[in-house]
């Protein structure tokens, strides 16, 4: 049983309701017991007192798209190292992708992940399970049993199921159980061997490239299959204006479709690859500036529901290669918060609305209790300084891997303290 804590002198942010008020918050038994202006300078008996110094107290972030190396590639990242990185980034829940060795496609493996997380991770770890066995896109997994074991959603991670017959049946079957399916949109044949987005920049670098349309074609295909099957469907990440328009259209037709965007597709474009910087080789690849700007617009308009890190740790030896051979992926747990805050700093959204995309919005999609300031909600909290400037240094990251696409970038906003279930899991004053 955790102690009672009272946070005083805080800027309280509830992203769900837009609540943004000076006050305080009381935590008891791992839950938010009460909050409001009345607690702004409360002195309570038998309570740990934390003076927030006017900084923002908000629900901890929920990152819907995190790859770790556990089980099977622990040299890249363990649940423990990922959770340490998450805590430092103000992320209190990570939804982990089933692309591990072995692939999470068996109920016992979901159970394994939950046990490993309970034993080693300081933030909440929510497993997802594969939609098809071995992520091979051929036969569906035991969706019902996996859900009973605790799989939060079903996804083939960063692979697209090419066979529409298989996908149609898997989606229809998933709809039975009202589970969320998370899709990846990149036509596997059209993007075969590609390292970057087709266009002038790729031509200049002489790199194998796929047209941005390879994404939209799958987005449009999957929308039709959702129409056919009625499944709740979420595009893990979109990255082009054409995809955004397709999703907006599907939503306007009332289809149960949502989508996310990664922090790096919001912040970076293909030109940031510069002279073959492999840390910026991600999947899908970075897009044109017009597409990047469309992503910001899509989040601001609410067409894009959530922002994710797409945290994908890669060992140095797979990144220190010529661009075409280098691994895809970038770590992002510690840069998700400032990437989202950039939307607020740029005047695109209010602070509560910006945080909504990484708190209450994913909580609602996934049916989680967190992501909001409410009495009885879990005390998963982040005390954050939205303005504090810092320069990303890959060597300072907590993640076991160093491959951040934001290396050397100037960002604004940092988590000062992070709490999960009322327990402090990160304190920057001690960490720095």
């Amino acid at each position, binding site marked *: 049983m955790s102690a009672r804590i009272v946070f005083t002198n805080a800027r309280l942010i509830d992203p769900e309701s837009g609540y943004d008020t000076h006050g305080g918050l009381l935590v008891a038994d791992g839950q938010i017991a009460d909050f409001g202006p009345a607690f702004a300078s409360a002195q309570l008996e038998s309570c740990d007192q934390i003076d927030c110094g006017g900084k923002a107290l908000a629900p901890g972030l929920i990152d819907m798209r995190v790859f770790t190396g556990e089980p099977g590639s622990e040299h890249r990242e363990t649940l423990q190292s990922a959770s340490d990185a998450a805590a430092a980034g103000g992320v209190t829940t990570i939804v982990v992708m089933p692309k591990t060795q072995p692939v999470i496609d068996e109920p016992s493996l979901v159970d394994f992940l939950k046990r490993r997380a309970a034993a080693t991770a300081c933030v909440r770890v929510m497993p997802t399970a594969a939609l098809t066995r071995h992520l091979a896109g051929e036969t569906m997994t035991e969706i019902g049993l996996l859900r009973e074991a605790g799989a939060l959603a079903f996804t083939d991670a960063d692979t697209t199921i090419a066979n529409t017959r298989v996908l149609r049946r898997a989606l229809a079957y998933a709809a039975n159980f009202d589970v969320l399916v998370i899709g990846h949109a990149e036509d596997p044949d059209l993007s075969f061997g590609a390292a970057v987005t*087709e266009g002038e920049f790729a031509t200049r670098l002489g790199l194998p490239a796929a047209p941005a349309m390879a994404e939209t074609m799958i987005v449009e295909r999957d929308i039709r299959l959702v129409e056919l099957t009625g499944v709740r469907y979420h595009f893990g990440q979109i990255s082009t204006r054409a995809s955004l328009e397709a999703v907006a259209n599907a939503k306007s037709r009332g289809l149960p479709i949502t989508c996310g965007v990664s922090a790096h597709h919001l912040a970076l474009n293909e030109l940031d690859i510069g002279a073959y910087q492999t840390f910026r080789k991600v999947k899908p690849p970075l897009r044109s500036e017009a597409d990047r700007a469309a992503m910001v617009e899509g989040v601001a308009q609410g067409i894009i529901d959530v922002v994710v890190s797409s945290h994908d740790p890669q060992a140095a030896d797979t990144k220190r290669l*010529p661009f075409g051979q280098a691994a895809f992926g970038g770590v992002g747990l510690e840069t998700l918060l400032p990437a989202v805050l950039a939307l607020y700093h740029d005047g695109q959204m209010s602070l509560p609305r910006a945080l909504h995309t990484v708190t209450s919005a994913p909580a609602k999609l996934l049916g989680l209790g967190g992501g909001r300031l409410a009495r009885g909600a879990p005390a998963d909290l982040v005390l954050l300084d939205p303005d504090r400037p810092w320069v990303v240094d890959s060597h300072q990251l907590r993640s076991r891997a160093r491959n951040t696409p934001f290396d050397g970038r100037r960002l604004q906003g940092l988590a000062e303290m992070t709490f999960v279930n009322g327990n402090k899991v990160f304190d920057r004053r001690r960490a720095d």
Partner: protein
Amino acid sequence: MNAERPSLSSRHLLGAEQLSVAEIEALLDCAEGYVALNRSTDKKGAVLKGLTLINLFFEASTRTQSSFELAGKRLGADVLNMAVRTSSVSKGETLLDTATTLNAMQPDILIVRHQDSGAAELLSHKLDCCVVNAGDGAHEHPTQALLDALTIRRHCGGFEGLVVAICGDVLHSRVARSNIHLLSKLGARVRIIAPRTLLPADAERFGIEICSDMREGLAGADIVMMLRLQLERMEGAFVPSTREYFRFFGLDRQKLGYAKPGALVMHPGPMNRGVEIDSDIADDVAVSLIQEQVEMGVAIRMAVLDALANGLKRYRGNAA
């Protein structure tokens, strides 16, 4: 040799894109001197005396490798040839492992050819020596463009307004990219001609003309530069067959007739006779500059090595 030695603003030669017009002209002028030297009986120079040059070729290339080797030797360098191919990669050694090993041998100039775009750039960040890109993937092959420019200048006098048609597999061609950058800078009008499957995306953004028809593309061309079509890209992958490719995009006497009278033909080699070029054209010394390109290759590489050795003095702060 000549009084004025060329110099480059960069320590490395990674691409034609980074070269300035002044640098290109200095290299071409210097190479003219080496053409004369190479034709004389005493070919030995000494500007690279004491320096070690390593040829690191991950892709086989008789022509380019021997050209660099000869250039280095004629200027007095110690030359080491390393044919790495893919064997070390299959043993798990990465490009950087190989490079780090070589670095420990204290080379002064590393010539690198690699199948991946950006490989030379990557090495230049990790090594102490000068790096010369002898072809990286579909990115650049700057010394090829320089030798092409030297060949053209010797025949046409200059580049202003000259129409150069580059024909064939532009999509996968580093030679095309380097020539587009270099010849455009020098004032030539560059045109590319290829079936649409072999045209790179957004090529028009490079300020060049684009055609998918030889008759239209060759009209008014002073220089016709043919590119090699890799065999694995025929047979239905990018074009349906060799014979169809030759019919529509191979250079024969008839298609050469669409170009300006007296137009000259170039090819970076090695040629696929009967695929992209008819032997009748390739072997016609009245129109083909192909053999001369090889000769100019040695001279331009001597000029490049000269410039880099000249630069080494600056970086190392001693009088070489």
